[in-house]
């Protein structure tokens, strides 16, 4: 059943509250949107409402972490990214055991438009040396990633979708931190994706297969640390890598993959993601506009494989 990863996170968090007494939730007037509301109802004493003051929220979370609490700090991805100075100083540099949870990733946020869209968050978070970055591709993976974070020690960023995502994984799925997942094999190119666009990549691979193009698909739920070994393997098999993400093309998954494969001379990587600032529209319309739906991803792959077609989706 299709479900937003933010919803699956909220459900998992409420369950974890019962088993992890040190888990606390820090929120800035967005618990109804980030889905920490359920936790707040079940564990009101461990829910810390700090209002629309995210800089303070990040610092308070760092202080809580340094007293032994396990704070999950939830807000929109863009508002956390906007407090980068507090994150680098109070969380990162202190190596504080804080989980930053950014919902409303990318243009998938939809009608609210650019001001509410996380489009730079991965670039910023992964620039901090000790920050791990996770982005689940469906509800099951979001639930498992949340469970993983309850026991992980160190600064972490979890990126979640506003929109419902189709199921990819079964309920017996096991989350392996730092491991990419080959969802489909293909010799012509490999689509390396993360988050809400992974399901679209699987559909795009079907569309491409119908036209005789064999596209592999790799799901990267752990953007940092990146599974470089797996990437090198799939890159050496197909030599063309198209990264796909609902994030700006500068600094996100695509950049991380380019960095990882930069010493493989025969491999060509093209980054496919959001160009420019976001805008208002339905999630469906925006995914069509930014070529992040299955048809758009398939078209981006065809252009990549056809040298005389000019690249339009790289920045």
């Amino acid at each position: 059943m299709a479900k937003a990863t933010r919803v699956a996170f909220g459900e998992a968090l409420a369950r974890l509250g019962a088993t992890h007494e040190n888990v606390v939730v820090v929120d800035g007037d967005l618990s109804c949107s980030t889905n920490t509301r359920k936790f707040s109802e079940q564990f009101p004493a461990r829910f810390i409402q700090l209002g629309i003051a995210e800089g303070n929220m990040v610092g308070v979370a760092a202080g809580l972490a340094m007293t032994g609490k396990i704070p999950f700090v939830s807000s929109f991805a863009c508002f956390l990214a906007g407090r980068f100075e507090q994150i680098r100083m109070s969380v990162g540099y202190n190596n504080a055991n804080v989980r930053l949870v950014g919902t409303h990733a990318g243009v998938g946020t939809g009608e609210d438009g650019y001001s509410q869209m996380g489009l730079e968050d991965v670039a910023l978070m992964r620039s901090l040396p000790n920050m791990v970055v996770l982005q689940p591709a469906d509800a099951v993976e979001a639930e498992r990633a949340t469970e993983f974070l309850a026991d992980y020690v160190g600064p972490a960023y979890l990126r979640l979708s506003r929109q419902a995502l189709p199921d990819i994984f079964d309920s017996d799925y096991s989350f392996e931190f730092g491991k990419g997942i080959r969802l489909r094999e293909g010799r012509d190119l490999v689509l390396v994706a993360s988050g809400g666009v992974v399901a679209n990549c699987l559909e795009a691979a079907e569309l491409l297969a119908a036209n005789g193009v064999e596209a592999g698909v790799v799901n990267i739920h752990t953007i940092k640390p990146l599974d470089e070994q797996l990437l090198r393997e799939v890159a050496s098999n197909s030599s063309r890598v198209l990264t796909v993400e609902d994030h700006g093309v500068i600094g996100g998954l695509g950049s991380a993959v380019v960095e990882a494969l930069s010493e493989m001379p025969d491999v060509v990587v093209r980054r496919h993601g959001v160009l420019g600032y976001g805008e208002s529209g339905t999630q469906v319309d925006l995914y069509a506009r930014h070529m992040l739906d299955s048809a758009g991803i398939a078209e981006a792959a065809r252009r990549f494989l056809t040298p005389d077609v000019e690249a339009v989706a790289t920045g």
Partner: protein
Amino acid sequence: MVVLSTAELSGLAQELRADSLKMIATAVSGHPGGSLSAAEILATLYFKELAFRAQEPSWPGRDRFILSKGHAVPVLYAALCRAGCIEEEELSTLRSIDSRLQGHPDHVRLPWIEAATGSLGQGLSVSVGMALGEKLDNENSYRTYCLMGDGEIQAGQVWEAAMSAGKFGLAKLTGIVDYNKVQLDGRVSNIMDLEPLADKWEAFGWHVVDVDGNDIDSLLAAYDSARANDEKPTVIIAQTIKGKGVSFMEDTHAWHGKAPNENELEQALLELGVGAAQDN
């Protein structure tokens, strides 16, 4: 801990000043003005007010002290040294490569530092988190102290933090403003006036104590007043003099972030009356 007299704490503050200036002179960089203004505050905290174990920095029951005005860290290192946490020879490594005594406080390198600071305006938020953590556990285990600069509290985040401490009634949180009236570019009143400062904190739900921050007994009374209040966080507005104790450094922004040369250090130590006995 031996209970020190007012005169002894005063003498200790002078020694912290001398140590700070020697460290800064050796490093050939650092912030004398805001270190000197806070010497009595550090002396009273570390030798009277704070509960801690010099050789057990992670003792859970320790009081937390966060130096939000991180640039004044030489005076904190000096206090940690006099308190037996770090060795005297380490003081001369301030700001040098591989030193635990970074130019601004570093929690990971030096365990007695409760939180990294130096990007101004963030320490009170971290302090609120620590005080909240203590309150959540309900074990009456420690108090939290946060020393802020006056220029620093121009930052909006400080007031976000102040609002949240008021909301949660963090009675075991004590903020101290080192109100030395001078910041890097000049006088606070010209750059971005803070007044009416006591009214601002009161409006945010704080118990306010306004004292002479270079006077030992006034500071001790202020800490007592904070302890006596069990409903609100307390802020001590410590009226201090920037560069206090060294005539040519007093009340000027010229010595906010400049190291004294050999002659200037000699003169400063002479004025402080503790130079001859020290040799680090």
